[in-house]
């Protein structure tokens, strides 16, 4: 009687891991539907602020167009920041393929349905996420520090790197930088993979 219950529970848990992982893979697709990050520049002369949305494959303003980039570039040229040119950022091209790859791998782990499969995917995804954030940090560092020596406005000792997460005063702008829905979906995806791994481990323990 007791044994039967246990075996039923094993089957359920085996299924649960699969479903959790599948859901995680689907949620990863949210990266294509929502921006990852948003940097808001607030100043008196910009009611509502200038909002730059960073997607896995592009930049946009809240109106869905790229006029925001032009406006930020115009502002940046006074202080000598480099122009943001989405076409020259290789990450925007290959990041989507990385995500497609991870989604494919995810589907593979669901079919495989093994603890090591889930765990491996989880580790790769976490490493990639950390690398992605670090890469983002490097770009921002470069934009904020690598200034044109001929810029019209030079403030000694001033750099213009927006915060990775958080808020900061940069000259007349109050800059806010926060993750958006895309990142939340990616985080949920990682959490679900972790849950799938954990469930799968429990399943194997009971089985042994």
């Amino acid at each position, binding site marked *: 009687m007791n044994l039967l219950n246990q075996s039923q529970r094993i089957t359920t848990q085996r299924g649960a891991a699969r479903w959790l992982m599948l859901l995680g893979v689907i949620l990863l697709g949210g990266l294509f539907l929502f921006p990852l990050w948003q940097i808001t520049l607030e100043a008196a002369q910009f009611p509502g602020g200038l909002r730059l949305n960073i997607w896995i494959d592009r930049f946009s303003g809240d109106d869905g167009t790229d006029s925001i980039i032009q406006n930020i570039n115009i502002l940046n040229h*006074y202080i000598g920041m480099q122009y943001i040119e989405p076409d020259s950022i290789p990450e925007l091209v290959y990041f989507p393929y990385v995500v497609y790859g991870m989604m494919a791998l995810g589907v593979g782990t669901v079919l495989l349905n093994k603890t090591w499969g889930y765990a491996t995917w989880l580790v790769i995804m976490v490493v990639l996420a950390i690398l992605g954030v670090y890469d983002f940090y490097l770009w921002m560092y470069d934009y904020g520090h690598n200034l044109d020596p001929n810029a*019209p*406005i030079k403030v000694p000792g001033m750099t213009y790197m927006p915060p990775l997460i958080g808020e900061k005063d940069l000259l007349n702008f109050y800059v806010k930088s926060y993750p958006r829905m895309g990142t939340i979906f990616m985080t949920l995806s990682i959490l679900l993979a972790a849950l799938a791994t954990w469930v799968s481990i429990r399943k194997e323990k009971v089985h042994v």
Partner: protein
Amino acid sequence: MKTNTIFLTLFFLLVLGAVFLTDCSQRTTQTIVEGDAAQQAYVPPGEYDEFYAFMSGGFSGQVTAYGLPSGRLLKEIPVFSKYPENGYGYSEETKAMFNTSYGEVPWDDSHHIELSQTDGEFDGRWLFVNGNNTPRIARVDLTTFETVEILEIPDVAGLHCAPFITENSEYLVSGTRFSVPIPQEDVGIDTYQENFKGLINYVSVDPEEGHMELAFQIEMPGYNYDLARNGKGKSHGWSFLTTYNSEQAHTLLEVNASQKDKDLLAIVNWKKAEEYLEQGKGQTRETSFYHNLMDESTSIVNSTEVTETTILNPQDCPGMVYFIPVPKSPHGCDVDPTGEFIVGNGKLSADMSIYSFDKLMAAIESEDFAGDINGIPIINYESGLHGILQKPGLGPLHTEFDGKGNAYTTFFISSEVVKWDVESLEVLDRQSTFYSPGHLVIPGGETRKPEGKYLVAMNKITKDRYLPTGPELAHSAQLFDISGEKMKLVLDFPTKGEPHYAQAISAGKIVPNVKKFYRIEDNGHPRAAKGEGQARVEREGKEVHVYMTAIRSHLAPDNIEGIKMDDEVYFHITNLEQDWDVPHGFAVQGATNAELLVMPGQTRTLKWKPFKPGVFAFYCTDFCSALHQEMSGYVRVSPANSDVPLKWGLNNENTTATNMREQAEQQLAQRVDD
């Protein structure tokens, strides 16, 4: 001694009396603002007004936009008068807006604002206004607050009675103020009665684009057609127009056109007119009038001459037009929100006549007529009457409605606004306006759904409302709160020109659609430079075309050489910005026309004729950034016979025609690839 004392006392009393009386008369003209009235008009910094009020500019020929209740002036929209402030009418793109059959007419006298309507409510899409002197109707696009179309109306004089809109913006109805010979001919003015005719004009409005077209004209007796309103709800399909000078006088109208006790209200069944038009009852006649329309993608005005008009004659079209008597020298003629009551005011009559649409229809049905004029039946006065508002005041002009069954009428002579009940014809309240009011406006007051919160009375003579400004004083608008039972004066604010009429609309119907900039990708101007790489100078014979870009904070190119004395230089400025409120200006020394204001993403052209050899500066006139002052450049002019090559550049990267063309082609190829 005794007599002396009496005289002294009398003198003293006289002086005292004079002082007291003067004091008295002055106090009556001062605004006594009660309690929290001022607070009601106060819109704190950072907050928006609740309504836009669009006021015509009268002799300024323009339209102004104000916020209500604050009375703040938001913008002057140039319509019928050239406007050097932004180059409207001076830039090559907008010059054609002033084309008429009389040639270029760079001014007018604008009178009545009409906002577009859908189902009898304002839809916030377009604004129409008439030019009284050179008969025309303009359309302002309310996404950009720019005049985008002007249509001339042929064979009329003084288009005062215009451009009254129907409840789905099907038509803009107008009538001639002065009857004239049709077609124009050299006849004695004293042959007025036989030779002079009036026209009622129907301009159709395209429901998608707003484009106007003169659909048909109705030939009418030679009276003066003054104001109009169209039916709504049950009376939709009908127009009502007041006439004066049914005496057909042609000199000293003040006396000779004020003889009859009653003039006439013309009633037009335009649905019937449409039927007759379809049956081919209209007669085409040769004429000439201009239609000036701005192309949305290039923002260039194209002007076309139209040479035909279709005329319907009431004699051939029974049931299309009726008359009914209306008290002496009427002015306004206003239809209430239900569409049932039509208020006809006689300026020189002590009473006001209110007609009932149902009764008018019944009278027409039973042919309850008292004769006819040129085949137009005259309905018996009493048969069409809902009732008479007895002695409400002196000199009734205009009436608006609050949507709660009340009407508000301005009285020019007795200087007041009177509130009365439309159904029961009872006077409910009266408030002094200071000096003589003309039109009045309630947001949506002309529509089926007025927002009866505020009333603005526009004053025509406002002697002591503001600090004096020489012999000419500011005209005034007075804002009343009409949300309660009694009207309450809340604010005075000065206006530009002499607003004849205004319409006010909820800000929520306009703000979400306001365009922030023109998308550069959509700029179809043939001489646009859509990127700095396309900036260049090209010679076409004696014409030199400068394809210049403007961006914070430089113009490209900023050094131009090789211009010669006989050249005509066209500066085509494209503003590359894609952000709200970043127009760039352009001015060049020695320009005899105007400066330019170029909106983000737009291209505008200024023609410039070199006036002597030398080096002349050009610069941006609209403060655009911390480095605005540095946004400038030079154009070098050489003698006509010189051999200075055409050369231009930015930052010492000089370019000549040959290598520039290569670069431009590369740029273009790159754009296509992208």
